[in-house]
């Protein structure tokens, strides 16, 4: 599998309702998941009450990798590798906590601590 590049401009054009700042943070998530080797695509929508969600999906398997939403003024994210969910009122903080637990970032962090090859 290889990462599928989705430009920030493309995301902005398609994701009505999310601010530019929020989309930039989603782009960070996209980059990290792509680094983990996932072919990622994104989708978004609104509930019947008008609250927004944003999903990252494995394009090959068709499965949802992470589900973000803005519910009652709070941000939430749920993902299989989280073993639950994260919530927060400050979006960048939530994104940072999420990225810390992302397989892509963990792998990058691990490889950066490997001793240099002899």
């Amino acid at each position, binding site marked *: 599998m290889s990462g599928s590049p989705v430009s920030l401009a493309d995301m902005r054009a398609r994701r009505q309702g999310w601010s530019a700042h929020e989309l930039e943070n989603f782009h960070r998530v996209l980059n990290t998941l792509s680094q983990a080797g996932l072919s990622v695509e994104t*989708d978004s*929508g609104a*509930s*019947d*009450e008008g609250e927004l*969600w944003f999903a990252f999906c494995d*394009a090959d398997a068709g499965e*949802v990798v992470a*589900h973000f939403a803005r*519910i009652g003024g709070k941000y939430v994210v749920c993902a299989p590798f989280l073993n639950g969910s994260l919530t927060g009122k400050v979006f960048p903080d939530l994104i940072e906590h999420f990225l810390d637990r992302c397989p892509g970032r963990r792998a990058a962090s691990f490889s950066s601590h490997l001793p240099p090859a002899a």
Partner: protein
Amino acid sequence: MYTHPQRLSARLTRKLRSQAGLWLRELREKRGLSQRELARKVGAQYYTFISQLEQGRGRVPPDRYLLWADALGIAPRDFVRELMSYYDPVTYDIMFGELRRGKTPAGGASRTPAQPATIVKMRHRSLPERN
């Protein structure tokens, strides 16, 4: 969050999931439930999952099939069989293809010309009624 990788093409998977979403939405609306009410009945952590599913992303977790069927007012067997046609069309075609093509399970007399396989024939079916 349940995951279950499929081996179908991504495009076909996407199309089938969209159909599943439309079907689930139709059932919910027929039942007069809001997405939040349905989420509460099926134990979804966030009700926005319902919107995501109805838009054709993700799938109903198998360990919640009975809850979903009850909430949507449909017999569990009918619910699971219909979902299988979207989520696992290969298995569905093996299990029910013979019946769909007009044959009886025991190879009886009501044989009709074979139809294209489920996985390439996108069809519209009426909603099963609860028994």
